[in-house]
């Protein structure tokens, strides 16, 4: 089922007409975003269907800028009401709201020369995500769960397995003549089995595969077996004493470190002085082996788009180059605040000002196979799961709940849980002593295995 009623031309026309209405109503500039999407999800648990969900929705957002002597007043509105009355309300509301905001000398749309979009097929949209009939979608989820639970008799329960598919359509137009639209698709299969140990203790983990095209999805059997392996290895986990040892981050959790590098490099954190990267451009902030890149142009990537939320072409920006902080990540506003150009990283919701958003964000692969990194550790922690939000980008302080496997003499020995790992990102980035060759994108942010020395483990 699809609730999309308008063709794409209709929606672009609608966006243009809203821009025109805003200008007539008193806006000096206007930006319109329209989003529509459909979703399907099937979940099973213990072999039975648990939920089936299928629907679609859409929304429109308007941002107006009203010129004043030394800048603009800006305001925005959003709505799910596409009727003529609804649109009228959207426009009048935004213009009225702009009367109450302050004049901001840094506000304003990008300069005309900056607009543009990537051409050619970015492989973002594949109709085949909806090609499976409902019964087959349920079967995919069932197969993933069956493969997980069939892997070992200790897998006695399940938090379920799922198959999801979604498509999205985004339209953007502004009063400087930019107009663009693109579609995207997504599908995924996931399983989350539960294992029980001899003492009754339970562990749950999960694994998934996601793709923009159904044909690129990994098999439900592969997903289920990997979910089982990850769950089983945590059985009989114990605590370890408080100590300082090297920590090896698996790719799934190393992504979080890369995300923190991005957060610290975003322009709005920088101009507010709210980042430990403030004033560090051109300085060595990480080990020389560390290169972090944001690239919104990778075909088929989950962070790829032809243009950003202000109508600037997506691009590749090196944030950290061989350990040196090379670029901040900017939208137009943050760029102006810092006297720099946007890096094409504007994101936005339907309402509100643009923020700074990542494309495909990754730590470049190193040369060491992951098992070689583990073998290089005498005593340490291989962390596979992190909990909580204990990352402070202002100070760099880092303290999170952790679970994983203990390393002795280069070998994984027993699982570990109910401990924390702590340090400060400023030192942690410099103390990255090994980077794996195992870079795989399983989402918009990716990292290989990394080893960080000098972190404190708090435990028993």
């Amino acid at each position: 089922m699809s609730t999309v009623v308008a063709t794409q031309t209709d929606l672009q026309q609608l966006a243009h007409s809203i821009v025109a209405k805003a200008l007539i109503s008193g806006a000096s500039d206007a930006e319109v975003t329209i989003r529509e999407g459909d979703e399907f999800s099937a979940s099973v648990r213990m072999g039975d269907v648990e939920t089936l969900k299928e629907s679609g929705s859409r929304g429109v957002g308007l941002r107006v800028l009203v010129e004043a002597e030394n800048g603009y007043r800006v305001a925005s509105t959003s709505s799910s009401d596409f009727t003529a009355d609804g649109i009228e309300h959207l426009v009048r509301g935004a213009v009225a709201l702009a009367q109450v905001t302050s004049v901001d000398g840094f506000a304003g749309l990008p300069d005309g020369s900056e607009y543009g979009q990537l051409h050619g097929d970015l492989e973002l949209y594949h109709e085949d995500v909806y090609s499976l009939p409902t019964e087959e979608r349920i079967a995919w989820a069932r197969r993933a769960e069956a493969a997980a639970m069939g892997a070992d008799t200790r897998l006695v329960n399940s938090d379920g397995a799922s198959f999801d598919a979604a498509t999205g359509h985004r339209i953007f137009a502004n009063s400087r003549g930019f107009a663009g639209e693109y579609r995207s698709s997504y599908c995924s299969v996931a399983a989350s089995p539960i294992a029980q140990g001899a003492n009754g203790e339970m562990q749950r983990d999960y694994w998934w595969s996601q793709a923009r095209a159904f044909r690129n999805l990994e098999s439900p059997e592969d997903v289920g077996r990997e979910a089982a392996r990850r769950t089983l290895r945590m059985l009989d986990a114990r605590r370890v004493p408080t100590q300082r040892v090297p920590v090896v981050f698996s790719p799934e959790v190393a992504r979080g470190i890369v995300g923190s590098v991005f957060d610290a490099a975003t322009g709005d954190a920088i101009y507010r002085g709210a980042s430990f990267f403030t004033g560090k451009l051109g300085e060595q902030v990480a080990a020389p082996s560390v290169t972090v890149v944001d690239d919104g142009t990778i075909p088929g990537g989950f962070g790829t788009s032809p243009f950003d939320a202000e109508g600037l072409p997506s691009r590749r920006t090196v944030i950290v180059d061989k350990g040196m902080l090379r670029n901040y990540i900017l939208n137009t506003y943050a760029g102006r605040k810092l006297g720099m150009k946007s890096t094409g990283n504007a994101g936005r919701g339907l309402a509100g000002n643009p923020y700074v958003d990542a494309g495909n964000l990754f730590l470049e692969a190193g040369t060491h196979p992951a098992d070689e990194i583990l073998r290089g550790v005498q005593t340490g922690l291989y962390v596979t799961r992190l909990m909580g939000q204990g990352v402070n980008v202002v100070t760099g302080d880092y303290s999170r709940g952790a679970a994983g496997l203990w390393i002795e003499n280069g070998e994984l020995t027993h699982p570990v849980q109910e401990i924390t790992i702590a340090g400060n990102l400023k030192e942690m980035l410099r103390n990255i002593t090994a980077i794996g060759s195992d870079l795989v994108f399983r989402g918009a942010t990716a990292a290989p295995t990394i080893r960080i020395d000098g972190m404190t483990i708090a435990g028993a």
Partner: protein
Amino acid sequence: MEHKRYFFEKFSITERLLESCLSEALSAGGDYADLYFESVAATSLGLDEQIVKSASQGVSAGCGVRVVSGERTGYAYTDELSPERLHRAAKTAALIASGPAKQTVQGFTETDAPNLYPAPAADLDTDLASKLDLVMRADRAARKYDPRITQVRASYADELRRILIAASDGTYASDTQPLARMSVFVIAKDAERTAKGSSGGGGRVEIGYFTGAKGPEHFAEEAARTAILQLSAVAAPAGEMEVVLGPGWPGVLLHEAVGHGLEADFNRKKTSAFAGLIGRPVASSKVTVVDNGRMPSRRGSLNVDDEGSATQETVLIENGVLKGYLSDKLSARLMGIASTGNGRRESYQQIPMPRMTNTYMLAGEDAPEDIIRSVKRGLYAVNFGGGQVDITSGKFVFSASEAYLIEDGKVTAPVRDATLIGNGPEALKHVSMVGNDLALDEGIGTCGKDGQSVPVGVGMPTVKLDRMTVGGTGR
């Protein structure tokens, strides 16, 4: 219930339409169906660098149709409320079952609900000038607090959510739910260090609430005080130690350590570390924990839940013994218990599930100063950021944003951010003292579960845990 009239007048919904959609939803043999209409109007204002940089308003409306067949749930929604679209959504959701219709729609009976919060007739977008005044006052107050405050961001956000629920079992309920919140975020800087501080609060209140004691100056000074304090903070200790939690927001401990683990869906499926522990000790005998959706004006309160059930006060742990779960209709039916009125959802696009409302520990008898005095070496944590729990293993974390060392019974140096970790079914067994100073949080909590966010409240008196692991870097 005048709340439902909004839907009748604005969207031309009629009781006949509700009945025909429910019949359609049951047409393939479902056991139960419900319709959830929602209309939300939201406003937010943001001040940054001493100017109001953002103002936005949004409206959205839609309806979700759910059909339950045994343990199966079919769900579809629409953001157009025409009879045709509603019927189409009902038809889609109906397909979870396969067979001839076997249930009929019962006559509607309106849920008996209290009036816990104001229900403004008009949308909240009327008094923009007063809202602007709040964020500007917050900015001035934070800057005035200390010259080392270099950045202030202040925001005001409110929404008015209207809901109408009709179910095939005759449940019929509607509500108008206001929600308002102020937030202040500051950066403090001295010659050597930079630190952040934040504060905020609100509830199911109108703007007049912020002219009282919990106004912009209060939140601004709290944020500024925390940031200045952090400029001189020392490394947090690492390892297991005695931990004293202050009153109010540290109740997030309960939300993570026991609250989620007692949601009925996890216990029905036996995926919770608390499964099968009803009647068993899960905390020290000094501990009594309740979830209470019926507190006037609280952020987590609801006149009716998102399935149209009346909310209530539910005892989760009484004198250390596990007493009950938090349930929605589905888990209640499958477990043979009554719904506790905890079926909640983020929006019409989502399936409801058991969620907390306001979760807190009842006061004990100890004086807070005696609790501090009893600690030789430990941590005194008075404010926290968020937390997280692994329901199945029971391991939970919560991150302290304001904490101090306790040395020889005295509160000494402030420490830097640190995460605390524990095991849900065990952690509260180490509670050895419970203060007489129960406080609820100021109204900032948002809880996430399966990708759905809902506003919640927490609370606690001062509590001493004889051991808990503190994740710092120091000694």
